[in-house]
């Protein structure tokens, strides 16, 4: 199916569940709310015409600098081995208690990238079996890929610097 046909099919079948659809540079993209994401995922996987049986990836995005509502987004990339087409699903996630349902019960391949989503962005993946740090050390504080997390921090060991906020010297913001 072409991207246009995928969008049409998804719009026809899931009119209530999806928030919108787009075709940037010819990719099929749909927008879904976290509450309906698991049902949408189940449909995308099991529908005979779509049959997205391959979980390609999920990435978190932090739109803090763009001041977008909601702040976070988790973007899923699905692929169909039989039909050779793909779709991107963008799930907007609120800043307060960010959470999204797991789809690792549908695709086992989602286990690791969903854990990384928690590790790097602090987005809780509801129903995920191991919701703990993956790449960062177990006792790490903060979520490194959030935009308000500084690029580098230095622990200050000199006593006269103790007054600084949590003993951290933040790096200069990047030049744009």
């Amino acid at each position, binding site marked *: 199916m072409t991207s246009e046909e995928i969008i049409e099919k998804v719009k026809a079948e899931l009119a209530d569940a999806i928030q919108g659809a787009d075709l*940037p*540079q010819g*990719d099929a993209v749909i927008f879904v709310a976290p509450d309906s994401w698991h049902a949408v995922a189940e449909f995308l996987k099991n529908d005979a015409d779509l049959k997205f*049986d*391959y*979980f*390609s*990836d999920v*990435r978190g*995005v*932090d739109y803090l*600098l*763009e001041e977008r509502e909601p702040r976070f987004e988790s*973007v899923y*990339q699905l692929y169909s*081995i039989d039909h*050779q087409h*793909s779709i*991107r699903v963008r799930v907007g996630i609120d800043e307060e208690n960010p959470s999204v349902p797991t789809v690792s019960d549908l*695709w*086992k*391949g*989602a*286990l*690791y*990238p969903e854990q990384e989503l928690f590790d*790097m962005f602090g987005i809780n993946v509801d129903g995920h079996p191991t919701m703990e*740090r*993956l*790449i*960062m*050390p177990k006792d790490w504080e903060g979520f*490194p*890929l959030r935009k308000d*997390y500084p*690029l580098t921090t230095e622990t200050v060991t000199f006593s006269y610097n103790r007054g600084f906020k949590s003993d951290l010297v933040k790096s200069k913001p*990047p030049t*744009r």
Partner: protein
Amino acid sequence: MSVTDQGLLHRDKDTMTLNMGPQHPSTHGVFRVILEMDGEVVQTAEPEIGYLHTGIEKTSENKRYGHVIPMTDRLDYLNPPGNNLAFCLTTEKLLGVEIPDRANVLRVIMCELSRIASHLVWLGTHALDIGAMTVFLYCWREREMILDLNEEISGVRMMTSYIRIGGVAKDATRPWLDGIRDFIEYFPAKVDEYERLLTKNPIWLDRTEGIGAFTREEAINWSFSGPALRASGVNWDIRKAQPYSGYDNYNFDVPVLNNGDIFDRYRVRVEEMRQSRIIIKQALERLPEGPYKTPDNKVSLPPRETLHTSMEALIHHFKLVSEGISVPVGETYVPIEGARGEVGFYIVSDGTNVPARVKLRAPSFMAIPGMCKMMEGCYIADVVGIIGSIDIVMGEVDR
């Protein structure tokens, strides 16, 4: 103090916990796996990653597009041109620039050479893990020739950064093309030589056949890609399914086997080396004349000699060097077939010269949970074979 005094024999379970790695030669980097052993048989295998985390994704969000390319080399350090290409294709899709034909062919040559080099490292180390020392030395001998070719064209042996946004870094040189011609004449006999050492070797067969087997459904569900998926009977090669860089112009076969065990993954990769050589041969034959990078001076630097005569070229040159490429607002993803499977960058642009988000889809990272699932019920000696057969690179796992 004896073992009994330490309380090691008084445990509430019959299994033994065994730590493997992160400093273990067969884990190909710093991969740690905690094995729960019942005698010699693995009950569960729990992976532990992150020892090589360098924060490349975070750093990329603070660098200009052009400056990210050298960092992509360090992700999958055995297949740097594949990563360069994935990053450049995604950026070019956002920019909407057309790539000249000659640049596409040079990119294909570079990627396929690097695929061969990557598979040679895999074959050498994998065979060494299982106990065949000679293959390792033979593979390194041929890989050295490819590294020399890399040096000739890009000045660097491994981290080439040869593929740039809008084309390639420099035009093909005569010695490079001659060197590739010599190499593709020389190489097929060497692949036969590796196969003579391994494919019918009874020890090799004992250690690989029927071990670490995944069915078609399992391999898809655990998000395997590349050779590991094709060994399980899935005919999916992105070069054929979603052709990029003009791969639809080449005639080559995609090896697919059905058993999904270590032996089939070995055979798929060996056949892929032959097919890559065929692609390079065709690419050399059809290498067209023309520019090696896009003439769009908002993306690639204008020719040096025009700077003295054209004001516009001077302005473009200054803007590109001082400011970099500004990419329109958008987000996109372009998958390519790397040496280990689907590689792709998801890039979000906010309209500036610095990407807002760069995320690598790494085939090794995606394969690790499935790989550990595969180990369950195997002997401890086969764990080494399974890790080698999936061909993980920790640089792209931890990023």
